[in-house]
């Protein structure tokens, strides 16, 4: 029977992919894959033909009889026929390295993984040895994709050089930033890539155990990754030399902060630890620990496979290689766009994203999750690069880009930032624990039109205290959305309010 590829990514499931697969089951050999990340076309199905795959989308289960009658299984013409997926402009403009296989392969088929270049990075690492492996990662310029942008190779070398008979690799899969879904997509669509990255890291620093800490809000990623671990163990990819255990979070945003995550893995409240000691010296259970984000680790296999130079050649400034940009929210072409650093924010939002989904003018873009700044179109010339965003009072974080149209109220968003910080603060340091609550109360006064100028001054002062007095990035960066809203959209803070806010 003809093979038809139907995604099982959670976003495709949310749009009815399981019903589509059921409707096709008696007519074709249905292979479930991850998503290519073109979410306005999901569920997007692909038919295997002698001349390659042919995509159709978006497809509903009710469309299947008509599609079959039109000759779906031979790749025949139909209004929802998209042609070869590789030729879709959204994909041809990308440089897919980390996400090369996502949406293409059966995520639980190790044969598929090998056939698409999988495990060659691990083989290469074993051939060149631990020191050269770390050297390759350092030379590639890979920086932590979780948001902090710390050079991965330096972190690895620090852990490798620390003497201990027990070391750990910890993967941060607590992808809590709104607007980000790259970790989820990769774990659902190409979990062996993450396993290979962890195995390379373990080999390089001399760790025999890896932990993947996945947020509980991702039940499908958890299930797929656990299934992939079983396959990897059965085939000997994981074993006595290096094994991985997945642990599940419990709904605390702060556990995406690396030291909170370690506390949580050790079985405690996810409260931030003061640094030093660095986790690379004294991390999980007091042992030297490399803690990297999913995308950082999943980028390592291709770096080992193709060499540091090939990866280093891509990018902009000190941001080397590719970044999976995640277009989200009120944007026409919402999806995952992996490209070298350096695209401008305007190119990302307007050229690639196609502007707002609602068709109304884009008014604000929040980059980097709840701790990221709100940028107006006047800043659309900012290149997507760690340093360039810092200069403009923002951050790229984990690469989420959330688009808002002109119905957004930025004073309301600033209040939400404080509310979120108050709900998610770990409580360890005063600026974050108390400041967020006072910030929320002060924003309520501003929203109610009470002593607006005086309270705006108070917010500025409070943000300064939180920025420089907080122990970690939660309290330290929540001023970014608040201050950017105030700086670029101050009219929203002075708008006469008809009724007091709740």
């Amino acid at each position: 029977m003809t093979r038809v590829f139907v995604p099982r990514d959670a976003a495709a499931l949310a749009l009815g992919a399981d019903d589509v697969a059921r409707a096709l089951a008696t007519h074709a050999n249905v292979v479930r894959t991850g998503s290519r990340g073109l979410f306005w076309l999901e569920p997007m199905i692909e038919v295997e033909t002698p001349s390659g795959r042919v995509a159709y989308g978006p497809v509903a289960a009710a469309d299947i009889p008509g599609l079959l009658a039109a000759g779906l299984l031979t790749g025949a013409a139909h209004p929802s026929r998209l042609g070869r997926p590789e030729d879709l402009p959204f994909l041809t403009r990308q440089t897919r390295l980390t996400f090369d296989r996502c949406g293409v392969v059966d995520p639980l088929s190790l044969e598929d993984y090998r056939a698409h270049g999988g495990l060659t990075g691990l083989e290469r690492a074993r051939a060149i040895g631990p020191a050269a492996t770390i050297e390759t990662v350092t030379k590639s310029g890979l920086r932590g994709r979780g948001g902090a942008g710390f050079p991965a190779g330096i972190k690895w070398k620090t852990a490798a050089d620390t003497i201990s008979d027990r070391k750990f690799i910890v993967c941060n899969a607590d992808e809590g930033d709104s607007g980000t879904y790259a970790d989820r997509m990769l774990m659902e669509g190409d979990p062996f890539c993450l396993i290979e990255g962890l195995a390379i890291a373990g080999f390089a620093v001399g760790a025999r155990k890896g932990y993947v800490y996945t947020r509980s809000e991702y039940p499908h990623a958890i299930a797929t990754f656990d299934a992939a671990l079983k396959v990897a163990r059965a085939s000997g990819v994981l074993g006595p030399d290096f094994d991985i255990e997945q642990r599940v979070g419990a709904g605390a945003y702060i556990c995406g902060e690396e030291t909170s995550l370690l506390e949580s893995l050790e079985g405690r409240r996810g409260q931030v630890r003061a640094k030093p000691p660095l986790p690379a010296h004294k991390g999980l259970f007091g042992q030297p620990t490399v803690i990297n984000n999913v995308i950082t680790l999943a980028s390592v296999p291709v770096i080992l496979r193709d060499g540091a130079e090939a990866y280093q050649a891509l990018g902009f400034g000190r941001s080397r290689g590719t970044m999976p940009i995640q277009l989200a929210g009120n944007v026409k072409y919402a999806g995952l766009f992996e490209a070298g650093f350096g695209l401008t924010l305007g190119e990302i939002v307007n050229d690639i994203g196609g502007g707002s989904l609602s068709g109304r003018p884009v008014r604000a873009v929040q980059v980097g999750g709840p701790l990221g700044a709100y940028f107006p179109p006047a800043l659309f010339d900012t290149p997507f690069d760690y340093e360039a965003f810092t200069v403009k009072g923002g951050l790229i974080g984990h690469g989420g880009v959330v688009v808002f149209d002109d119905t957004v109220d930025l004073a309301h968003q600033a209040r939400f930032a404080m509310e979120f910080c108050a709900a998610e603060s770990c409580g360890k340091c005063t600026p974050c624990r108390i400041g967020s609550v006072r910030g929320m109360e002060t924003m309520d006064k501003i929203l109610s039109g009470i002593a607006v100028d005086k309270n705006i001054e108070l917010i500025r002062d409070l943000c300064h205290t939180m920025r420089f007095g907080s122990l970690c990035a939660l309290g330290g960066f929540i001023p970014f959305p608040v201050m950017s809203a105030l700086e670029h959209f101050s009219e929203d803070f002075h708008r006469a309010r008809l009724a007091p806010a709740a």
Partner: protein
Amino acid sequence: MPDLDPSPDAEFEPWNEARGEAIIAARAGEEGATLPILHDLQAVFGFVPREAVPMVAHALNLSRAEVHGVVTFYHEYRHHAPGRHVLRLCRAEACQSLGCEALTDHVRARLNIGWHETTPDHAMTLEPVFCLGLCAIGPAALLDGQPLGRLTPARLEAELEKLS
């Protein structure tokens, strides 16, 4: 792996000390076992029963205060059994940009309950969630663990109708 969301019409077990003891003992030897044990308890009983807290403390050589601290720190652990269905609605920024606030207002009015509350007939528990990773297809939700996207009040009504 814990079952994080009950399947439709999940029947949780009533608290049973021997059953609780067995769940705790199964993982007590693991390093950093607190969260995995609490997940397992919640998967079976629907929440973390008060009676289990001193038992976990004893098994892991922790104080009751430490275990109580963990149970109350994490939003996910429930202190009461949920309704037969659990609706987790995303309230984060990407879903806000697509109007999730109007949707959540509608749902709360329709069910006549607030966040973390259960309807009097025990049919539905409403929980907020900050991001499901479905930010490209918001507003998003998990209904009994099933992802839903591009929700409107009407679409969500239709999904809730299917349950009854």
